[in-house]
């Protein structure tokens, strides 16, 4: 409703929509945000919560910036920067959490936010949850910055635009390409974390990446090829990451493959040996391991939206997750990987945790409250998508340790199978068991050789059954920490950046070629 206090404005708007721009305060004499004050705002928020009766509180003041450049068919399609600044405070009262966020960066507003968080926590008592307690972690005063050579925000946007325009032009020059796209995105996230226990941590995380894809449109279907992976490859670090992709060198190849797919044979419906390229294995890990080992899901905290997990804590240390080749870790310290940081959003230091050892399930992703309930050490895996979101358990770099083979050896030792590359679709049930993935491209493998190209490849399975079929894994030379910048979880949906080290791998007797 247009406010009653301004009837003239409503009448004006309804008649013509035209309005003269009033002269507000001219923009042009401002100063930048004083970063030195952001610890003060976080401390004010914590103090506000404590003054209102909270038994514990923590707060994150945050200043984040994202730059995104999208190109399509030789033109810049979108060029934008988004900036978020604010403070979010979490208060524990009577064993229940409350959280409040504001973008009004003043000490008074931050203190009020802390009070609001405590008020909200108090209201939680109407429908009580088992009392929250926090596992002890070191009380740290520290700072961290992502190691990087070339700050992506210091690289001229014109250089980025030129690169993307060039590669999309090159892809469109291939006959049959209907759409050629390329993207670069960079993030700078500065956080100032304070807790009532004495934490005082500042961090600057630097991330960037991108990629390109070409789409060919046929009579009744489309085919797409991407590089370096579907939706692009992302990592922590500087612009050197994007330079390493060498996008121009790959543009003609992926465009030609997209066109070739339109006339390729359909992936057969069969039970077949399946060889997965490493970025597809990375997504397989993300969906069928990474989400399943989130302790909040195992405890039922995400049941309604994201689902639970087939994993039962009583079987931690004994459940057979896969073959003995399967060794999975969650490592938030891995250089350059997208799920790397100094401290999580509870102030717990980044660390490496074993998840699956020789095929047996041995670890989970956890935070201070979930770890306390499970009687486990806190994993330092709690993060939030912005100052205005509640931190929750998120994947760090959940990846598979390399084996001792190679893709060439895997192919040469496969008599009858399908080699699939680059994700196209992904779907898995709410317990992380029944999955179906589609890939952009596949090749038949016959008698140790890669044969004809196959279109619309899909495969399906049940998580522990599928992982038990893993029998070959490439070695360290082909181990890549793939980044997933679009991991969704929570309500409202929070997006997290996660990493997934993986190599090419082979699985025996998998159902492929599911048809619609």
């Amino acid at each position, binding site marked *: 409703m247009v406010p009653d206090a*301004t009837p003239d404005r409503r009448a004006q708007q309804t008649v013509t*929509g035209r309005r003269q721009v009033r002269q507000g305060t001219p923009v042009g004499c401002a100063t930048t945000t004083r970063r030195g004050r952001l610890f003060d705002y976080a401390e004010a928020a914590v103090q506000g919560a404590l003054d209102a009766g909270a038994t514990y509180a923590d707060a994150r003041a945050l200043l984040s910036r994202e730059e995104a450049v999208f190109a399509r068919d030789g033109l810049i399609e979108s060029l934008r920067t988004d900036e978020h600044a604010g403070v979010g405070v979490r208060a524990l009262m009577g064993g229940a959490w409350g959280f409040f966020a504001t973008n009004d960066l003043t000490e008074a507003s931050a203190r009020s936010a802390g009070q609001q968080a405590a008020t909200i926590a108090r209201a939680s008592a109407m429908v009580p949850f088992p009392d929250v307690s926090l596992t002890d972690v070191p009380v740290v005063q520290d700072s961290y910055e992502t190691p990087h050579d070339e700050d992506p925000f210091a690289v001229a946007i014109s250089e980025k635009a030129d690169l993307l325009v060039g590669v999309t032009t090159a892809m469109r020059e291939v006959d049959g390409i209907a759409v050629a796209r390329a993207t670069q995105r960079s993030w700078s996230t500065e956080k100032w974390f304070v807790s009532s226990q004495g934490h005082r941590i500042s961090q600057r995380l630097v991330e960037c990446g991108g990629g390109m894809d070409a789409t060919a449109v046929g009579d009744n279907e489309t085919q797409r090829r991407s590089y370096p992976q579907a939706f692009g490859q992302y990592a922590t670090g500087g612009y050197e990451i994007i330079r390493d992709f060498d996008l121009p060198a790959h543009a003609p190849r992926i465009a030609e493959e997209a066109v070739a797919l339109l006339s390729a044979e359909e992936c057969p419906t069969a039970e077949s040996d399946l060889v997965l390229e490493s970025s597809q294995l990375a997504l397989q890990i993300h969906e069928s391991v990474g989400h399943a080992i989130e302790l909040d899901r195992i405890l039922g905290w995400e049941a309604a939206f994201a689902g639970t997990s087939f994993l039962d804590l009583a079987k931690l240390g004994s459940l057979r997750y896969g073959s003995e080749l399967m060794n999975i870790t969650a490592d938030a310290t891995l250089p350059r990987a997208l799920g790397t940081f100094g401290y999580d959003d509870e102030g717990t230091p980044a660390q490496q945790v074993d998840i699956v050892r020789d095929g047996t399930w041995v670890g989970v992703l956890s935070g201070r409250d979930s770890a306390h309930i499970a009687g486990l050490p806190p994993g330092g895996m709690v993060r939030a998508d912005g100052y205005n979101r509640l931190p929750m358990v998120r994947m760090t770099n959940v990846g598979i340790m390399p084996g001792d083979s190679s893709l060439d050896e895997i192919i040469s030792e496969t008599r009858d199978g399908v080699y699939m590359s680059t994700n196209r679709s992904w779907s898995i049930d709410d317990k992380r068991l029944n999955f179906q993935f589609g890939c952009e491209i596949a090749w038949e493998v016959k008698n140790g050789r890669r044969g004809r190209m196959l279109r619309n490849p899909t495969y399906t399975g049940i998580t522990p059954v599928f992982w038990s079929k893993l029998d070959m894994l490439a070695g360290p030379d082909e181990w890549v920490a793939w980044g997933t910048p679009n991991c969704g979880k929570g309500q409202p949906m929070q997006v997290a950046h996660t990493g997934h080290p993986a190599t090419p791998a082979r699985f025996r007797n998998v159902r492929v070629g599911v048809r619609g």
Partner: protein
Amino acid sequence: MSATDGAGPAAAAAEVVRLERLCDQVLAGLGAGAGIEAQVIATASRWGLTRFANSGIHQHVGEHTVTVSLQAAFDGRVAAASTSRTDDAGLYELVQRVEGAAAVRPVDPEWPGVTPPTDVADVDHADPATHEPAPAARAAHVEAFVAAGESTRAAGYVDAAGTRTVFANSAGHHATGSWTRATIDGIHQTTTSAGKGHQTSRRLGALDGGATGRRAARLAADSADAGDLEPGRYAVVLSPECVATIAQFLAFYGFNAKAHLEGQSFVELGEQQFDEAFQLWDAALDDRALGLGFDAEGSPKRRLQLVTDGVTGNLAHDRRTAGRAGTQTTGHAIAGGEVYGPVPTNLFVGAGDAPDVGALVAQVDRGLLVTELNYCRVLDPRTQVVTGLTRNGTFLIERGEVTRPVTNLRFTQSFVEGLGPGRLLAATADTRFADGEFGPGMVHCPAVRLASWNITGGARG
């Protein structure tokens, strides 16, 4: 800042004035000049969420935020930026970022210009009491939902959101709007099953946590100890939640004019692509709708008939796609639409005449009753073949009756084919807001009976 300072008429008026000042300040900062076009959107949001799991509240949050978005073209060189820093420094840097980025961008040959002064309907989709309710009001709905299950565990959320938005551009076009939305969405769980309940309304006070919880608890109990089912083609009765997901996929991937212009949409205008019983339209101004009366470009929203008697009729356009297609915008620009294209987000699916879901079930000789589709992904946008799973209550129907629960099933099915000629056999007379894959409050629809649905897997793989 207090918990209630945004709800009253005086506070609302003051907030709108503040947002207008932010818009004016940004436009003034850009300066006037030949070749400079700009649009600014300032939005103030109040939002509160109460999440529950294991039958208790475990996440309880609130936020007050203001964001300002600017898109500007300098002789056709276009850039955009947004900020939540609304002080002088933040707005100054917002303008600087846009100017700096645009300066190095090539001229955009498809820049459609900003919206000229245009009538915008004075819709009111806001409920003052919902704009900023106390957390206890949400918790009371949770309490009722949880209490509806005697021996089940409950999980879900209640939220209430209120938004005030001011749009202004360099052509003198101006629009103001506000809207609210409240949702209760949750499941009850047994040790082997789950059932879902959902309600969305403009008013938090219109939600009924007890009734929603009872539906979820009953579905959970009815679907306990489910058995597997062989893959194959089955007749289906789909709940409004399933229909909402289908409608959202048709809208995002098909009726999106950008996808159509690029040859990636299934839409063939004027063709009988759907059953003659299928009606689909977008109507932001409908009395039942949520949202603003204008789009991200400031264009007024009007009713857009997408499918009439099964014949595909229109595409959703923004100014950019309209320019390319030589037509007019339909008012469906979204934020980021230059990349993703225009999308209808106030969808309505036509009702039928069946009194309730039970009547639809009674018409089925052998088939499935499905509560929700989950984790749906398009395998190919052109054919709209989608894979996903059933969730929160799936049942076998035999000779007009539900005979047993079945485990969650995987389907791989073309949504266009599923609603194709001869396949939409019946729909309920009642329609409501349903929760789809892209979220609540976007689709108002009935439950439907379809002739065939392709089940490709179950609990065994």
